[in-house]
């Protein structure tokens, strides 16, 4: 459902979350996360939302529909991650928010990987 390279990057972040809160690793994780949600949306709905806001709307609408449990769990996990990412992974302010990124990696991101086939 998602590219091997993207999955590897996210799995590496989950294995060592502290390393992925700064610098190049954080940049790669941000790109991998954006690649991942776009590929999942395309795989599930054959749609390509153009940004995170549109993706959340698509997932929100999809949650009202009937899906097999595995798909429903993935939709929920992706929706939660997209909502949370704005305040963690993509937070703009210059304060140290390493711990919130770490929590995001070990919480929301890990859950998506768990839900992926």
């Amino acid at each position, binding site marked *: 459902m998602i590219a091997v390279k*993207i999955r590897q990057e996210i799995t590496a972040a989950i294995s060592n979350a502290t390393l992925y809160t700064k610098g*190049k690793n954080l940049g790669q994780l941000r790109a991998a996360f*954006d690649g991942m949600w*776009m590929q999942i949306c395309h795989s599930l709905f054959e749609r390509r939302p*153009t940004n995170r806001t549109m993706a959340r709307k698509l997932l929100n609408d999809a949650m009202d529909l009937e899906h097999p449990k595995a798909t429903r769990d993935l939709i929920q996990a992706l929706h939660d991650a997209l909502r949370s990412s704005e305040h963690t992974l993509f937070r*703009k*302010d*210059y304060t140290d928010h390493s711990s919130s990124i770490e929590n995001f990696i070990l919480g929301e991101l890990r859950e998506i990987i768990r839900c992926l086939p």
Partner: protein
Amino acid sequence: MNLSSQFTVLIGSCARGTHEATSDLDIVRIGHHQEIARNWLPQAERALGPISFIDYEQEEFMRLHRQGSLFLHHIFQEGIVLGGPHDTWAELCDGFIVCDDFKDQIEEQRDLLLWICDPIAFENAELALLSHTFRILKNLSIFSLAQRRQYIFEKREALSAFLPGLRSDDVENLLAANMIFERNQPDESLQPNTLEQSNLSELIRRITNELNAVGVL
């Protein structure tokens, strides 16, 4: 800086007077302890366009001041103080010396670019690839120019100055992808077929050729 000082500074295209209809209003807040009151924001954005806030804790701002941060140089060069004591701001400007070595930042952006320039891994996520590529190229350009003591912060100008061989339609397409992806702009601004794998691979090839030509790769 007085520990009670708070500043609100307008930066970006609006401060430079180069804004367009789609430009963000970029506001730096330093030492503010309160979150932005979100209830008035939609109304303000309807009147002024998208507003983007960049918050600094005072200690972090002073740490970056001592380090000679390039972004702070940018704020001091073009910023218009909207709130806060002007005399303290003038002292901060006068006491600031911009760092003269950005090799680490250049290397970081170059490595990031090498990692992301992979259209196959980003199949069905092409807009994300282009948007991140644009942001990385912009940062790489700004840091590389600063290494030569050229301080350009306007994105198109920085890209054109650092990568003069990059086609202007490529720059416009990358910028359009970033505006669609990060700023929710409508997607008509992107040239048709840009996201097709063959066109994307060609674009990435032109970017890497140009980076080779300027000695980055």
